[in-house]
């Protein structure tokens, strides 16, 4: 360990006590991973419990010039919480306090380690919920959701995390604390809150979040539609929305995925179907009836085999459990998976599903699809055994081709998981050099030393150019 690191460890121990600073080899090993297959190198782990402690940790890291990676529950899928160069991991998992709900303004301040589902559970008695619901919502933290600007099945109708975060308290890389945003719908000045949401820990550590709470819908109906072809199911997705109905959620699952997940949930999913659609409509009873009728009519037009309507809350919960535990169930097929969450315009769903099938077949890898069909946010899960280098290579190759195909169809890299390390080097596919430099400048405005979660999001080599352009570079006649 370097002297700087040893001094940092001493300082952190004084603030946190020996129990909340992990230095052992095995602990460091465990904090070198998240939910993805990316592995890194963790120097030490700090577990603060208050904003003041985080600020003190950050000041010490600043003095020591040590890199910092914030971490929530570590369920991320792109290596975003994986430290790469032996830096300090600040785990926010012990910051789990919720302040009292501001009922009049329908919002609540929470610490970043609070789990997503725990927010909804805690406010259900007020007839409210926190709308963004990533599939990992039982385990993932609000801080992580803010970092990745997480989505979820119900984001089709309700919007993603950034639409539900009114303000954040940010500890900047030098340890200063700042609140960005507020209860008011539109704070004056630049929307810096919007910069922090989705910044993947590259601008500082979020220590409190003001969440917007949404009324629970008065009525909800969940339907499971099954099709004998993926193309029919894909066509139904765009047709429903073209008819003017925005379902609360519109999810697709292909046969491979259905087989794996049914083994766990025993929800009676039709395992012989080529594709399933899970459609939920909510609102007033009249809206729900109308939405249901449209969905059934459109589905019938495209040769739906059966429409199963959840009869009660238990059945609805079971269908959602099937959807939300899908990733974890992949281990029934192979010990690891490689996954992109690229997006295509939903008008191109039919095409992209065919292309994905072609690519995975050509590379000889098994692909399981389960995704947010309504907003074209794909999750082709390529199952693999990492101890087989050839299969790993083929999986990586297939993933690469899928990303490129999505971008070629006018899509983008990530719908909700973030960029992290895994998709970092694809950024030039969607941004040119100027765009990337502009983003690097924003990042640098918050983190001039480049110590916050370095080598994530932007490709290595993307540095902020000189912001003040030299006089000679300004074309004549330009108004400055």
């Amino acid at each position: 360990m370097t002297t700087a690191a040893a001094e940092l460890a001493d300082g952190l121990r004084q603030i946190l006590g020996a129990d909340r600073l992990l230095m052992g080899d095995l602990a460091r090993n465990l904090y070198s991973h998240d939910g993805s297959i990316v592995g890194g190198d963790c120097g030490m782990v700090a577990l603060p419990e208050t904003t003041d402690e985080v600020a003190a940790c950050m000041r010490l890291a600043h003095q020591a010039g040590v890199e910092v990676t914030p971490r929530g529950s570590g369920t991320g899928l792109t290596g975003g919480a994986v430290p790469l160069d032996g830096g300090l991991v600040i785990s926010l998992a012990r910051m789990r306090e919720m302040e009292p709900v501001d009922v009049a303004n329908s919002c609540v301040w929470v610490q970043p380690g609070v789990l997503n589902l725990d927010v909804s559970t805690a406010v259900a008695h007020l007839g409210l919920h926190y709308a963004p619901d990533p599939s990992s919502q039982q385990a993932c933290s609000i801080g992580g959701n803010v970092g990745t600007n997480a989505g979820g099945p119900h984001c089709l109708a309700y919007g993603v995390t950034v639409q539900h975060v009114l303000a954040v308290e940010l500890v900047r890389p030098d340890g200063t604390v700042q609140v960005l945003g507020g209860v008011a719908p539109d704070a004056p000045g630049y929307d810096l809150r919007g910069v922090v949401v989705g910044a993947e820990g590259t601008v500082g550590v979020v220590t409190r979040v003001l969440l917007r709470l949404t009324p629970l819908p008065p009525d909800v109906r969940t339907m499971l539609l099954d099709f004998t072809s993926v193309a029919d199911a894909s066509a139904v997705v765009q047709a429903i929305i073209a008819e003017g109905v925005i379902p609360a959620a519109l999810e697709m699952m292909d046969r491979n995925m259905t087989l794996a997940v049914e083994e766990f949930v025993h929800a009676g999913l039709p395992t012989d179907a080529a594709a399933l659609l899970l459609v939920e409509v909510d609102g007033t009873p009249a809206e729900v009836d109308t939405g249901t009728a449209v969905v059934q009519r459109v589905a019938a037009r495209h040769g739906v085999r059966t429409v199963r309507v959840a009869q009660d809350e238990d059945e609805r919960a079971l269908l959602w459990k099937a959807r939300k535990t899908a990733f974890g169930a992949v281990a029934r097929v192979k010990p690891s998976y490689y996954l992109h969450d690229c997006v295509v315009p939903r008008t191109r769903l039919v095409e992209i599903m065919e292309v994905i099938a072609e690519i995975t077949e050509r590379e000889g890898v098994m692909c399981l699809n389960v995704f947010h069909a309504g907003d074209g946010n794909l999750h082709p899960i390529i199952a693999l055994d990492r101890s087989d280098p050839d299969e790993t290579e083929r999986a990586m190759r297939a993933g690469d081709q899928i990303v490129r195909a999505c971008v070629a169809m006018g899509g983008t890299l990530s719908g909700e998981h973030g960029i992290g390390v895994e998709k970092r080097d694809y950024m030039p596919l969607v941004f040119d050099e100027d765009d990337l430099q502009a983003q690097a400048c924003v990042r640098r405005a918050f983190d001039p030393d480049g110590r916050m979660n370095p080598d994530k999001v932007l490709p290595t080599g993307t540095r902020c150019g000189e912001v003040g352009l030299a006089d000679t570079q300004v074309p004549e006649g330009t108004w400055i």
Partner: protein
Amino acid sequence: MSANWIPGVPAPTHDDLNTCVQCGLCLPHCPTFRVTGLETSSPRGRIAAMRAVQEGQATVDGDFTRFTDECLACRACEAACPSSVPYGRLIEAARAQTEAARPVAERAVRRAGINGVIGHRRLTRLMGWGLAVMQALRLDRLAPARLRMATPRVTLRGMRQPLPEPVGDGPEAMLLTGCVMDIAFRPAHRATLHAMGRAGYRATTPAQGGCCGALAAHAGEVEEARHLARQRIAEMEGAQVVVADSAGCSAHLRSYGHLLADDPAWADRARAFSARVRDAVELDAPPARTVDERVAVHDACHHLHAQGIGPEVRRVLRDAGATPVDLGDGGRCCGAGGIYNVLEPEMAATLGEQKARAIMATGARVVAVANPGCAIQIRNHLRAQGSEIQVRHPLEIVD
């Protein structure tokens, strides 16, 4: 890449470890993770630690032992896991490893209780008498807190009361008398024997009786566990149905098939035996009396997570007219975990306190608890909070 497991001792297998994709859905279900927020006290972290040893990046050292020791083996993670990772099997194998790595002196102390006393029926009875005398003289107050919180209430009267002679007519059902149950929970045994009779069996007890070996298995003492399993099979396999009124025991009896799978002389007998095991709450016995009150229900981990038993307990109570009340804590472990509360007193105390508060919040006068470890822990923590709520086996409540 060669594994760093200690040779000649059971170890987590490559195939079992490969069933985990590190998704982390287990984290919120793990009681120790909920308390510490540490990856190292989560199921995913423990599996990653095992995998690090398997892949030659770590050894069975002090840290590894600490991470595994902290696990309650409640298996809440197993029920939540979409890949059905066999976590119970993994942690038992990891513990066999940590036991083998433990310094001889420390291991001897840990083993003394499990192999030296619990495994021997007479010594267990003797210990029961000792406890009863100590508690009658109130000498137990001199014991350190961690032991006191893990010690059952044993009375001289209870030690003297025999179990009833065979009850009822029909095919024979034999009750496992066990170790701790036999000295501290005879009222539950009596109620269960009555219920077996009402369910249409001739209810009997084994001539000798003794421990099922669950405590030994959970502590990584696999050989001792196998020895006790063979004893119980030999003694009880004649009965059509084998009944246990402790969640930990019924779950363990059901795993004899797995425990003795590598023993050619016993594998078949063990499998057949396991198939005949019924937990007391699965007997479908009509209630003996009407219970007109609300009853708080504590789900033992070895019921809820290991066997999927939960509705059965509520049905027993509802059939008698009682209103079962859930605790609203998602069935989190009470922290007893076999002898966990002796070995990891701090974590056990935190969880025990949480559980006592959740029970008190129901406003019920009695809580149904179908496992001796939980009953001891819950009773002691209720009393420590100044609560007089009664702790009873569900069949005792309707007896």
